[in-house]
């Protein structure tokens, strides 16, 4: 017969074993139950003046989420990612409405908008009050950049307009055989994109000794642009800089051609014009035009893998539009920020965006996402290299430096002429 005290020990031991065993079995299911869901909302233009970009942008973000879910599983990181979209429409009102619609489902990050005016409105009406992280793939104006000071929640994966304007001025000076005394007509849409972009270029061109007509700003809803065109061609400028969206430029370009003093070959812009001359725009208004845009690597394993992935991903469209990789990177930064923060809180993610995108730390690309997740989950620092470039976000939430694409419309298509880095006020051809 077993003594009572031994009986107590046996009972305690059996109970402990049972508890241990139960705990051991329960551990995975408990882990599974605590998976953090990071919801991303993507405000993309499906209607309105930038509609040609929207489907490609959303597809890029969907790819990022799909890759992230696969990596989270492989890295045993208890997080999942989902994405939904809403139409940015044709202006700030519809963009804010779209952002609110997405936010009502509970969001961690908001991607978008595509234009500066929409992005600023979304930041002020939704992102900042709701403490979300907002990352725009295309809002390049300094007006959007200023929103970062209001709580550090807004970021972008595209270069600032002031930087682009300076690069454009230097490129034009080189292309036109110097800037000194040369008259350039500067025009653009009168909004938070066109105003600052044209002013920045005019300042940069004047600083090189050039002269400008304008900036001539116009209402994107004007009934006619013929008087605008007359003002732009006055004084027979050697070149034209127009900062506009494709939909409005279709009319402005036609009006410029009707003056008889304009040709697409004399046009320079940093605007986001699409891969082919859009229907409705006279070919002569864009054929030969120089489009200086933030670039992305054209060769190397990362872009090659991305292009393959984009082509095989089961969603339309098949054609990539400019800046779609910026939206991919925007989604990636949100995802990596969430993993680094171990949280789906928008404010917590925002605090990690700069950390995951800039030195110091070992570099990871999206093709090494599982390893990046493991490192971040373990509390290590990484320096994510995007598909659109190295990113390296600074303390203002802006991309620092990066590649410049020199494009030109040839045979109806936007053709990459060269790639360069802007170093010491000079465009230095990119390696590779």
């Amino acid at each position, binding site marked *: 017969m077993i003594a009572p005290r031994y009986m107590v020990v046996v009972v305690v031991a059996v109970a402990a074993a049972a508890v241990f065993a139960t705990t051991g079995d329960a551990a995975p299911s408990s882990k599974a139950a605590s998976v953090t869901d990071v919801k991303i909302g993507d405000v993309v233009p499906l209607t309105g003046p930038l509609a040609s970009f929207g489907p490609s942008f959303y597809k890029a973000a969907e790819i990022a989420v799909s890759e992230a879910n696969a990596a989270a599983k492989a890295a045993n990181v208890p997080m999942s990612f989902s994405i939904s979209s809403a139409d940015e429409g044709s202006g700030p009102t519809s963009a804010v409405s779209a952002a609110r619609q997405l936010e009502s489902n509970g969001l961690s990050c908001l991607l978008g908008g595509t234009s500066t005016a929409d992005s600023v409105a979304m930041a002020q009406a939704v992102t900042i009050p709701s403490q979300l992280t907002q990352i725009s793939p295309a809002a390049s104006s300094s007006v959007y950049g200023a929103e970062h000071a209001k709580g550090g929640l807004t970021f972008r994966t595209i270069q600032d307009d002031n930087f682009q304007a300076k690069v454009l001025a230097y490129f034009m000076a080189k292309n036109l055989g110097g800037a000194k005394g040369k008259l350039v007509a500067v025009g653009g849409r009168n909004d938070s994109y066109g105003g600052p972009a044209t002013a920045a270029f005019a300042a940069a061109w004047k600083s090189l000794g050039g002269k400008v007509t304008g900036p001539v700003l116009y*209402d994107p809803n*004007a*009934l006619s642009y013929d*008087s605008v065109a007359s003002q732009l061609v006055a004084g027979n400028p050697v070149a034209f800089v127009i900062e506009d969206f494709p939909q409005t430029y279709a009319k402005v370009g036609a009006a410029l051609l009707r003056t008889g003093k304009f040709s697409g070959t004399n046009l320079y812009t940093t605007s986001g014009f699409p891969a082919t001359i*859009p229907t409705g725009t*006279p070919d002569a208004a864009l054929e030969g035009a120089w489009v200086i845009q933030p670039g992305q690597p054209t060769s190397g394993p990362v872009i090659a893998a991305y292009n393959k992935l984009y082509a095989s991903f089961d969603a339309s469209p098949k054609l990539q539009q400019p800046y779609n990789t910026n939206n991919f990177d925007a989604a990636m930064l949100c995802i990596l920020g969430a993993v680094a923060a171990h949280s789906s809180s928008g404010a917590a993610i925002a605090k990690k965006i700069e950390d995951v995108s800039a030195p110091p730390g070992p570099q990871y690309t999206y093709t090494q996402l599982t390893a990046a997740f493991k490192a971040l989950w373990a509390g290590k620092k990484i320096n994510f290299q995007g598909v659109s470039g190295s990113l390296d976000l600074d303390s203002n939430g802006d991309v620092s430096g990066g590649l410049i694409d020199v494009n030109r419309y040839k045979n109806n298509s936007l053709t990459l002429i060269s790639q360069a880095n802007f170093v010491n006020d000079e465009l230095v051809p990119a390696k590779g």
Partner: protein
Amino acid sequence: MTPSSSPDRAANAAGSEPTAASAAGRVGLSLGQRISVAVGVLILLGVCFGFLKGAQPTLQTSINGLVTGSYLALAAVGLTFIYGILRLINFAQGDFLTFGAYMALLMNVFVHVDIVISLLFACLATAVLAMVLELGIWGPLRRRGAGSLELILSTIGLAYVIRYSIQFVAGPDLQQLRVNDISFYRLPDGVTIGRTIALTTIASYALLLLIGVLLRYTQLGKQMRAMADNLELAETSGLNTRRLIVLVWAFGGALAGLAGVFYVASTGGFDPTFGFTLLLPLFAAILVGGAGDPYGALAGGVVLGLAEEWSTLFISPAWQLVVGFVVLILVLLVRPQGIFAPAARI
């Protein structure tokens, strides 16, 4: 009194100038005198601007202003007629323009039909659309006692339905008719005007003149004006107002379709939202000229077009649309009934 003689008499009474209904209290200039004064003032202003800013820019902006004025006038005539007769502000008028443009697109680009035939088809289709809406929605609403607010809200709702239906079918992307919108005529002193623009502008003004003649001298025109002056009196006099109202909608719809096609053929690419952006300037044009008065809509369109384009001689084009509304406010302050409407209307 025979049944047929009654409408004629009502129309003849309304057709006289000034009309019997409004003769009392009308003080001032006849229609011809008002046109002469308006044209004289505009020419005087043009000459002044020429001295101040130079002949070339003034001439160029004047031409541009007359071009813009032609689109506005053409679309505003239909709008103001509907308002004059039914006191209905048609917020769907801008989208009638869009509908017309897309009907022309359908024929011209997808069926590969000549632009003139496409234009006629667009006018017909928009007229049919306006008639169907009158017979199916606005007419029944009025007969069931719907007030102005309900009717206006129905036009706003229809505007959205038309716009987004077009977008659903044709997509949001820019479209373009198969017309040459970039070739131009070179006039003296470096002034230019697009060939298609010149053609559509001349056609617009010729048509507006024809409408003026139609309203003044034909039986139908007199009947329309009789209804605009006093719908109940016209009805009491034996006019078949229900049939005439449908005709007025058809007339307004056809003009809107025509204005839509002329506008997009001249300015270039268009999308389903373009008509909506023209709506406020159209309202401004009819208010400047005098709400309910077709001659006023013509005058208002031209005044607004010139004001907007001339303003670019002095201030940034970014303010073009604002200038139009400043002119509207000034006109309303000085002459609340509009430039062309007789004083008795207020």
